[in-house]
């Protein structure tokens, strides 16, 4: 039975399908390669196939990379920089607070974040980026220093994390700020249940440090639509507080609130130059991957 490329691609990106793949490495490779074949684009953006720019020769530079033609025209030594040289440290910040353990379907937000992180890490490693990981809740629980050889560590660490504790932003971000020193890319995967202005300001700090920051805002469809009908005691997965709620009465208000929150996050991130990508765990990873691809290209072009 023949399978259409779209169907094949979708099946590889479907979170429910991915949820049944235990090997995170296999999952990431399958997703990324499938995704890239689907869009007919080379995944090797960092390989030095394309000229990027010239820069003056500095002592210590490899003399083999001197552009002699330009030297002939200008009598100055310039070094040719290719795309491959734009490879950077990519730090993945995966929120593992208890709220990320929520899932109205088979895939929780943490699972989705895990898939996303793995795929992006695989993708970035393919770009010769140095991938690192900060898994955090109230503090950093897993830290993989960025390195071109740390993809496996990142994937293993991502596979280990569990959403158990109450989350916070202050301490983890402080640690990231102290350890992620080189300019690079910070990829936040979180549900961002925090004050929008505060979180935007905190992420904007990294942007001000010269990092490129992208925030993948992962939400479960139940968090967006609030499809509950019967009066129920809702328990906060982090604070464990229990609140009686009548969804029929307050679903609309909730939806307004979450939309306002998302908008506030988007505006806050926008103000601080942070890319904000809203992801629904019920939807395939296409959007996330595509968004990251666009983000990465934009970042390369901007250099």
């Amino acid at each position, binding site marked *: 039975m023949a399978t259409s490329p779209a169907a094949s691609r979708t099946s590889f990106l479907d979170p429910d399908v991915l949820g049944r793949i235990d090997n995170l490495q296999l999952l990431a490779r399958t997703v990324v390669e499938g995704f890239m074949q689907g869009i007919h684009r080379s995944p090797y953006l960092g390989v030095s196939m394309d000229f990027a720019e010239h820069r003056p020769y500095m002592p210590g530079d490899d003399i083999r990379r001197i552009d002699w033609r330009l030297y002939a025209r200008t009598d100055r030594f310039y070094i040719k920089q290719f795309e491959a040289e734009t490879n950077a440290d990519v730090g993945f910040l995966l929120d593992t607070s208890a709220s990320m353990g*929520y899932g109205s379907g088979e895939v929780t937000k943490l699972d989705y974040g895990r898939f996303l992180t793995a795929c992006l890490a695989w993708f970035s490693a393919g770009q010769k980026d140095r991938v690192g990981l900060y898994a955090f809740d109230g503090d950093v629980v897993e830290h993989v220093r960025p390195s071109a050889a740390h993809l496996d560590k990142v994937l293993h660490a991502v596979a280990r994390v569990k959403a158990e504790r109450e989350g916070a932003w202050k301490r983890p971000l402080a640690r990231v700020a102290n350890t992620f020193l080189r300019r690079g890319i910070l990829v936040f995967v979180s549900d961002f249940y925090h004050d929008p202005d505060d979180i935007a300001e905190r992420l904007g700090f990294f942007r001000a440090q010269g990092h490129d920051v992208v925030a993948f805002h992962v939400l479960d469809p139940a968090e967006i639509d609030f499809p509950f009908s019967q009066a*129920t*005691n809702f*328990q906060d997965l*982090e604070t464990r507080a*229990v*609140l009686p*709620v009548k969804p029929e*009465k307050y679903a609309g208000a909730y939806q307004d*609130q979450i939309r306002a929150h998302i908008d506030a996050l988007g505006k806050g991130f926008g103000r601080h130059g942070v890319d904000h990508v809203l992801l629904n765990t019920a939807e395939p990873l296409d959007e996330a991957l595509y968004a990251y691809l666009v983000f990465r290209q934009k970042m390369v072009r901007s250099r």
Partner: protein
Amino acid sequence: MGFLTPLFLIALAGLAVPILIHLTRQEKGRPLGFPSLMFLKRIPFEETSRRRIRHWALLAMRLAALGLLVAAFARPFVRGGALASVGGPGPEEVVILLDQSYSMDLGDGWSQAVDHAKGVVAALRPQDRVSLVAFSETPRLIHRSINDPARIAATLDTLRTGSLATRIGPAIKLARSTLAASELPRQRVVLVSDFQRTGWRPDPDATLPADVTLETVVIGDEGAANLALTDLQLDRQSAGNRERVTVSARLINTGDAASATDVTLTIDDTDVGTATVTAPAGGAVPVTFDPFTLTRPFTRGEVRLAEAPGAGLGEDNALHFVASPGGDLSVLVVDPLGPGDSNLYLRGALGIAEGAGFGTVLIRGAPSESQLAAADVVVLNGAPFPGGSAGDRLRAFVEEGGGLLLALGQRSAVPSVHAEFLPAAVGPVTEGTGERRLGFVDYDHAVFEAFMGPRSGDFSQASFYRTRRLDPGDGRVAAQFDDGTPALVEGRRGKGRILMWASGLDRFWNNLALQPVYLPFVHRVTRFLGGRGEIPPWHLAGSTVNLSALATAGAPLEIPPGAVAMGPGGGSVAIDPSTSLLRLESRGIWEIRPPGDRPENPMAVAANVDVAESDLARLDVEEFVGAVGAEPPAGEAAGDSAAADAGAAEMQAFDFERRQSFWRYLLAAAFLLMVSETVLANRLSRGRIKEELRTDP
């Protein structure tokens, strides 16, 4: 109402639980995890609404369900009233035996008895049935197996004590037969009585099946003092043509202290004498009055006690009698030998009598018409039955009410034309090898009735050497010799009576004339033939008398058709002329009156209570229950101690609870309430949510 396990009622404090839950409860179900509650309004129940009870019906149902549960565990029961009949293992057939004897009238005993009977009826359940039996000497089934408490209560209100004595045995028999006709699974006999010792004689037939519960209700005080008059006797003495009567009685005192009281004799409503006597404690004293002259028939007399506080029962405080002056019976003795040894003893016997005696005329030949007209009784003492017209006259004499005694002897013979007139055919002289004696005497016969008791006459001592053989036809054999041949045969012809004695009344063929029984025997034979049985001055209340057997001084009494007997209490009883029987239901003077007439001095009969009923000594109830053989009711325990009473009360309570089993109904009601509460709560909850959505979109 009571509770078998009242400690469970402490759990009623748990009634506060539903209220607290109602006021403080949270949303139902397990909490649903949610990433963050920062966007949710936490206003499912306003504080004010939690503190305010919105649905009183729900709260009431919850409280009621809990209360019912607690009450069920406390195992309630009801001792009386309509609810006492609710529940239980099955319908019950109840027979109430209510003692109506006059001893029940002591103090407020009767009202107690009626109240208790009403209580039993009131406690009946709808499926139970009850029979009401009032008894004294005989039981009377008033209601059989009905379920109409109001009707039975109304009947109980109409009942009164009578003049009769207690006889428990027949009542037990009637209860057993009544229960035997019932198909109800549970059966009970409630015996309400003062349980006098004299009212019960062990009787193998007066028992109840083992599965019948016998509930005894003892009425009255065993040690109550009582004065009673008894042993009324009239001693008659002839004084010329008049007759003097001396009245005597005995006063019995059953109390612990001697009692002095006046006893008055009244003749025809006139006090003729009063005696003041002192009856010792637990003893008796005779009372005798001066004789009075008996002048007219059916003279009424009364001996009564003056009203005294310690007199106790009222029914035994008076004795009644009726006396009539007796006249001599005219006896015509026909003896062909004339005055001599052949009639010496007969004449001697007829010449001796107390009070009314016998006027004897001795003739040799057949009696003339005038002689028969003047005679009441004709004795053919060894004489043949006359033939021809004399024989016809004699037959007519008998048929018109005269008496004829044939004392058979050697010369006795009966013409064939008159043979069928006699109750037995006269056979030849029988002369056995030895002396014979009377082997059978019918003590039920009026002639021998007086000899029934011990030491009242022994006919077996008389020897008979020669007799005439009697072949009884339609006659009744009243006595037989020890070889089985008839000795005395009785027959009735018309209004008269005939007796045939197989031997003589002298001492030639037997020695009866030498026996002590000869004199009363001759007197009773003569009086029987003359239609004058012994007229007792009084009868026991409750007995039945044959009015036609009573006689005036001149002639046998004739009861006119339609006559009625007026009782002492004013009621009247119709008398069946064919039987002329009258049952004396109450003590006092009963008057027999022709229909539509009020004669100045009517025929009267006196009735007195059985003094045995005055003995208030009580029967051992436990022993009685054991003798009857029924199952005593659960919880009915003997004993006077408080502990025994408490134990009995506890057992009774347990029995009440076991029979009623209210806890089942309470549990069922609690369950239904809980189900209803659930349904109602769900509906109210849905309705409230919809309402809130409408009002607060």
